[in-house]
């Protein structure tokens, strides 16, 4: 093959990019394998720090229960009790696509899944100055305390009037809707399985 023909072919042009992409991909996979446990532990510590804010300062996580959701996937659900040991809330960890990247959040509901007790965003990479206000208690997360869990939440742009309405963060409707979608899906996915698992525990 002549030099000219070689440089004209697709591989002749792109071989360096392809090789680099494979090498970098392998390097990143190694990083992920090496550090993912540590990152997971950090996240877990963060969840335990957040739970008292979501449920109340006297709250103690008494059990990490693996529950299979409606979608067939197993996830950890935190069973939270007060100092006397009676169940006061469930905390679900949920995630989904936001405007920019994955949003991960915690949502706590009362024992029967009728009201949401609180919501807290664990990780997000939404637009700084707009979408990242979804982490702000004054602007956004405060609205979730005490809202109904019986009806899917909807986002409105004006002041919320119905009990299942959440007012969007100004300039970040998509981020706000992502959050409510994640919460609605998590509650729908885990309500029956969690209640079921609790009934099974009581009868045995």
């Amino acid at each position, binding site marked *: 093959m002549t030099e000219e023909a070689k440089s004209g072919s697709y591989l002749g042009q792109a071989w360096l*990019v392809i090789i680099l992409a494979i090498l970098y991909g392998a390097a*990143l996979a190694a990083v992920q394998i090496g*550090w993912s446990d540590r990152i997971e532990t950090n996240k877990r510590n963060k969840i335990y720090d957040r739970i008292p804010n979501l449920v109340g300062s006297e709250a103690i996580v008494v059990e990490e229960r693996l529950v299979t959701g409606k979608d067939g996937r197993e996830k950890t659900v935190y069973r939270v009790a007060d100092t006397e040991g009676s169940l006061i809330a469930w905390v679900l960890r949920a995630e989904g696509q936001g405007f920019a*990247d994955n949003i991960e959040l915690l949502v706590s509901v009362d024992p029967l899944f009728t009201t949401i007790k609180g919501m807290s965003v664990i990780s997000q*990479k939404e637009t700084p100055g707009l979408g990242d206000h979804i982490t702000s208690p004054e602007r956004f997360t405060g609205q979730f305390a005490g809202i109904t869990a019986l009806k899917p939440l909807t986002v409105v742009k004006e002041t919320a009037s119905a009990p299942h309405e959440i007012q969007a963060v100004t300039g970040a409707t998509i981020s706000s809707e992502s959050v409510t979608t994640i919460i609605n899906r998590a509650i729908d996915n885990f309500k029956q399985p969690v209640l079921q698992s609790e009934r099974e525990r009581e009868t045995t």
Partner: protein
Amino acid sequence: MADSGPTAGERFINGILPENPVYRQLLGMCPVLAVTNGLMPAMTMAGATTFVLVCANVITSLIRNLLKPHLRILVFTLTIATFVTVADRFLAAFMPEMSDALGPYVPLIIVNCIIISRCEICSSKQGLGTSIADGFGMGLGFTVALLSIAVVREVLGSGSVFGYELMSEGMWPRWGVMVLPPGAFLTFGLLLGAAEWFGMKRRERALGEA
């Protein structure tokens, strides 16, 4: 291939003050304004950026003779993105609080023009030693710039240095505006003006002597 252009020593020195990426080239304004409300986040950002700068310069310099002109930007971006991801995961694993505080600004190092401009100007044309010196020089220049802004904002805004309280609330009424976005613009504008003024004075003196 013989190196043309500044030597390693010149590259290193240039990066710190004469061609400071922030004060002289006005590149990388996003982290300059966004993460300088405290010295700790500024230091972390500067460290992560320097790491990416040096690593991207090393790789680009090693493969500089294989680069196809029309694909070079793609290769630069690919390289930078990889090291930024490594830096991001490192912070998430070993410095979770800083990782939270910096939030999206760590992944945003990918679009920091300082790094791609060094690949284009220096490491895709010059040897390994020069490129490493350039990376450290520019990284140090960026660090100096971020810290100079952060120290003003943290002292005036929170009365502390690296989180340690310097002045009590009674001694120094916190200037809340300094930790908020306007404080970044005010501080950076004044410091940039001062840097320009000193530069002008020096040029005038040099002209007078000549």
